[in-house]
Structure formats: C-alpha cells, structure tokens
C-alpha cells in the first residue's frame, strides 16, 4: 500500500523530474510529507509566483518540463501569472496544486478555489484528479500534453483526500488524445512552392521566433540560413538561436528592435517566418508590415497561419522536419545566395541610438554594454520586464541557444529573478545572470532568501533608475509628461537589503568605477548583487510606437 502523494512523486520521477519548485500549505501537506523522504528534490521559493517562474526558467533553459507546486486557494491562484506566462511563450510547465478535501468542494471551504475554472485559459490543459487510481496516468498525460506539439503549461489539481488515499494498485492507461499524436507532416507541395519562391526572391529575410527553440530546430535553422546567405532577424524569444558571430544576423526586430532588422523586413520581397506568431510588438501595424513581401510561414500550430499576417505558403509541421524538407528540396536544384543583399541589410540603420550624456551619472545602456562585453561565453541571462529587458535584448549575443530567457508574450514583471534561480538549478555548472529593474526586483525580493538558503550562485544586475522606466518613457512621449505612479525615488537601499539576506552587494554609482566594479562582481564566488544607480530618464531607442511601422521609427524624443 502506498499513498496518493507518493504515487504523484513516483509519477513525476518516472517523467524524469528531479526538482520541483514550490511552497507548502494545508491542502498539499500530504505531498510535502511524501517529499520528506523522496528522491524528487523540492526547492522552497518564498512565493508561489516565484515557483512558477522558476519552473519556467528551468524549462526555458533546458527544453525539459519545469514543475511547480502549491497549495489550494491562494497558493494556486498565485501560480496563475506564471502559468499564463508559460502559455504565451509556449513553455512546458506542469503545476501540481493541492485542493480541499472532495467533500468540501463547493462549500466555500477554507482555502477553496475552483482552480481548474480559473486556469482554463491560462493552461494548455488542466485536470482535477478525483480517483486515486488514476493519478499515475493523469500525470503521464499532463507531461505528454505539456511537451507535445506546441508546448505549454498543464495544471493537475489534486484534492487532499486523494493525496491521502491508500492505493494498492496503480492504474497506468494514458488515453489516446489528439495532441500526443505524431506532428503533422509538412506538405511536399507547399515545400516545393516555398523553395520556388526562395529561388525567385531578390530580397528575402528570415524571421525566427521561439518556435525554433521550442521545436529543437536551431541546428536546422542555422544550416538553412548559412546555405542561403540570407539575412535573418529574430523575435525576443529566439535570441541566441543564430550562429555566434553570423554576419547576416540582424538581431531582434520589432518595437525596440534594431533599425536594420526592421528596415530589412520592410524592404523584403519574401519573408520566411519560422516558428513566430507576428506579435503586435513585432508587426506594429499588420496591414503595413512588410508590404512588398510574400510570406512563407512555418509553424506547428496551424491556428497561427493568417491569424495576423496572411501566409502565401503555410508550412504546417514540426519545424525541424519542415526546415529539413526545405533544405533537401533546395539541394535538389539551384541554391540561391543572398550575400549581397545580406551585406546591404546589415548596413541599414547604423548603430543603436541612445540618450547618453556625459553628466557623470551612470547610463544604463553604458553599464549593460560593459556587462555583456565582460560576460563569460557560457553565461545564461534572464531578464525582468521593462526598459532593461529591451536594452538587454538589443545587446545580448549568447553563444548558445536557450541562454536568454525573458517573459516575452505576457511581459510579467517579477519573472526575471526567480527564472534565473530555476535556470541555475537546471544548469548548475554555468554562470547565470539576471538583469532586473528596480520595479521588478521589488516584486521578487523575497527570493533573496531562496538564493541564500540554497547558495544559488545567481548574479543579480540591478538597473535602478528609480522609475518604472518603460511606463515613464511612454508617459514622457505619449502622455504629455504626466508622470503618474512611476516615480520610485523612495526606493530602499537594495544593497543593504541584499546584505541583510547574506548576499554580497557591489555598489556602482559612476562611469569611472564601472569596469573595475563589474570585474569584481563577475569574479565574486556565489550569489552577488550589482546595484547600478542609473540615470532616471534614459529611454529605450529606437522605438516604433505601438500600432505604427518602421516608417515612424523614433531614434530620439521628437
């Protein structure tokens, strides 16, 4: 005889789970009791939201399923933002939540919440386990759903009495369901059509999205763009997918993307959109986006075709297979080269504009330039959300895929720090850095305790401009400088807070001391905080205002 809770942990172990991020509470206590003596390791975060983000950081930097757990009611609802973040960015996460005892469900019991209803639109699938005999098959199904097709989050809600049930027979009969079926095979006709269009193109541009990483298609993508000498841009979720040092890599496109990437896309006569979804932060105004270009769109999710931008050729299938088919079809005949156009595209737009002034105050972009120049090649970088995120995305050139993790689609502040903790547990031998703003850091401060408890060597780069900088920037540019609720001049002493948690802190206040302080920070053993007291009004440039196109691109305040 064994308990339902032990069966849950055995099922997780069967799926290869080694670490679960979570926070205990009443309804889930039987699971924590079983964890006490189980091989699955539990990492205590200091808020359930951090557990979900840590699971996401774990998953984003490995491609494995990240797992988090929380108790019923408020514990479960605190996971919701992290689940929706994983949904938006197609990250495989499984959440296990405790639920009140079965006989209390529907009685407004203590810490009762209908978490399956609440998370229906924040998960790819969720399920309430009512029969202890089905725990194993349900967990197996949850992992299959999270991993397969377009990955995403799954929530498994387990009542307290199901955890406690004594089980002598474990039923393991996962049902057949559509999502676990083999991915669709890309149409040969569509592949031939795509290749004909590539051969006829004069100014093609490839745009890659997070699907290249999620679909394990990085190598195939690098082969394709090298074969063609085609200029290529990426969305924020695909940073790091290009070959290191590839001269045809135009960098990130979109609202705060590189000017050259946005202009090249606008001048293109053919777009190869690979595993990307034409987010509004990328297209601005879809009806004026890449007006002259035919679109070849490859994705595993058929609902993406034509959702925002019409696909002239839709390549529906697993991206690795699709790119392999394109490469094979190209190799059967003439392989065009686009080096001249790629060289021209690279020279479009010039260097990144900035607001830097020589007033002796630290510039955030200057600090980040220096930090990215000093980071080890194998560093993993996570970011929070806001100006620092865009500055980092403009500058990051990771040498390995899955080395840049950020809350892209949802833009969830408070993501960066716990995601870095998850990334560090998943990659214990690689240096992990989080770049975070003063607003987002205050949403995740309690995780300093997690860092200390487990001696996680995450390095925190705090870009403190005493503002909710991105909102402040929009207020400056589009709301007549009416700075409503964005001034954080009363910030606490972050370095002192870190030190109170036992985390060494480095204070950086002037450009003159920047290189020396950054070098000491990077060389420090174990966790550390670099507090950068930055200029309060530096803006992110370039910028394509929302709903506009590269034609309205701004490089400075008008």
């Amino acid at each position: 005889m064994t308990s339902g809770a032990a069966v849950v942990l055995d099922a997780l172990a069967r799926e290869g789970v080694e670490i679960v991020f979570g926070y205990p509470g009443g309804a889930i206590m039987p699971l924590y009791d079983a964890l006490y003596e189980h091989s699955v390791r539990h990492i205590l975060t200091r808020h359930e939201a951090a557990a979900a983000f840590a699971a996401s950081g774990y998953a984003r930097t490995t491609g494995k399923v990240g797992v988090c757990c929380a108790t019923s009611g408020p514990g479960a609802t605190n996971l919701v933002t992290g689940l929706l973040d994983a949904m938006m960015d197609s990250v495989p996460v499984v959440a296990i939540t405790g639920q009140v005892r079965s006989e209390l469900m529907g009685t407004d019991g203590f810490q009762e919440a209908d978490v399956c209803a609440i998370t229906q639109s924040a998960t790819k699938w969720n399920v309430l386990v009512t029969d202890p005999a089905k725990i194993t098959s349900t967990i197996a199904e949850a992992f299959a759903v999270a991993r397969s097709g377009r990955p995403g989050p799954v929530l498994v809600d387990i009542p307290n009495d199901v955890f406690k049930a004594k089980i002598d027979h474990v039923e393991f009969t996962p049902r057949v369901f559509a999502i676990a079926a083999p991915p669709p095979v890309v149409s040969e006709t569509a592949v031939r059509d795509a290749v004909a269009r590539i051969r006829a193109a004069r100014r093609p541009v490839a745009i890659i999205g997070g699907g290249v990483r999620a679909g394990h298609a990085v190598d195939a993508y690098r082969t394709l763009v090298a074969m063609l000498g085609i200029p290529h841009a990426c969305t924020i979720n695909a940073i790091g997918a290009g070959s290191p040092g590839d001269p045809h890599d135009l960098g990130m496109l979109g609202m705060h993307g590189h000017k050259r990437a946005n202009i090249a896309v606008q001048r293109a006569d053919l777009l190869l959109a690979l595993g990307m979804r034409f987010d509004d932060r990328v297209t601005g105004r879809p009806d004026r986006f890449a007006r002259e270009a035919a679109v070849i769109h490859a994705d595993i999710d058929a609902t993406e075709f034509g959702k925002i931008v019409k696909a002239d050729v839709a390549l529906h299938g697993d991206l690795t297979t699709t790119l392999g088919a394109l490469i094979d079809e190209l190799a059967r005949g003439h392989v065009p080269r686009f080096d001249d156009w790629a060289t021209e595209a690279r020279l479009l737009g010039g260097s990144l504009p900035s607001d830097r002034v020589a007033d002796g105050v630290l510039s955030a972009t200057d600090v980040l330039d220096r930090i990215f120049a000093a980071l080890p090649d194998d560093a993993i970088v996570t970011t929070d959300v806001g100006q620092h995120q865009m500055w980092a995305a403009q500058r990051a050139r990771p040498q390995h895929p899955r080395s840049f993790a950020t809350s892209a689609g949802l833009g969830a502040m408070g993501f960066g720090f716990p995601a870095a903790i998850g990334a560090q547990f998943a990659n214990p031998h690689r240096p992990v850095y989080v770049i975070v703003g003063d607003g987002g850091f205050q949403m995740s401060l309690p995780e300093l305790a997690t860092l200390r408890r487990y001696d996680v060597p995450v390095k925190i780069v705090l870009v403190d401009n005493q503002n909710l900088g991105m909102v402040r920037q929009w207020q400056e540019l589009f709301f007549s400088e009416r700075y409503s609720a964005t001034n954080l001049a009363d910030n606490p002493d972050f370095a002192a807070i870190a030190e109170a948690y036992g985390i060494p802190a480095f204070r950086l206040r002037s450009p003159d001391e920047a290189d020396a302080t950054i070098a000491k920070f990077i060389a420090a053993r174990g966790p550390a905080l670099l507090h950068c007291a930055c200029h309060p009004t530096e803006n992110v440039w370039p910028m394509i205002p929302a709903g506009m196109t590269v034609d309205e691109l701004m490089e400075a305040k008008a």
Partner: protein
Amino acid sequence: MTCELTLRDPRSIARIINLAHRFTCRCTRIDAVANEESTSASLAFSGNPGALARLRAQIDRIIAVEGVPDERTDLQA
C-alpha cells in the same frame, strides 16, 4: 458559423462559449450530449467576420488538445 465537435472534456464547450463572449460573438445554438469518454456538441455563433475568424482559430486550438481522434469535427463559416 456552425460547429460540430466531439471533445474529450465537456468543460471545453463552456470555454468555447466564454471565448465567443470575449470576442463579442453571440452563441445562438448549444446542443450537447456527454457520455463517459467524450462530448458531442453542435454550436452556432453569430458576429462580425473578424470576430468569428478569431473564435474559429481558438476553437481549432482547443480541438488540437481536446479533439477525439477519428471523430467528426466540422466548422462551417
């Protein structure tokens, strides 16, 4: 727009109706029969073409996870 669906989980029908409301479409027919393994539903929606297209894409996404293999699924504009 009409939908003939067979889904694993009857909750998905409620989800589709919620989505219709979100896209300012109107659900004009709900006819569903649930059994142990699946739920068959016949639904109809009205609304502007853009909203219906968005709803249809979301229904396709739900079918991808919840659809029962080999069962009939039919969406008609």
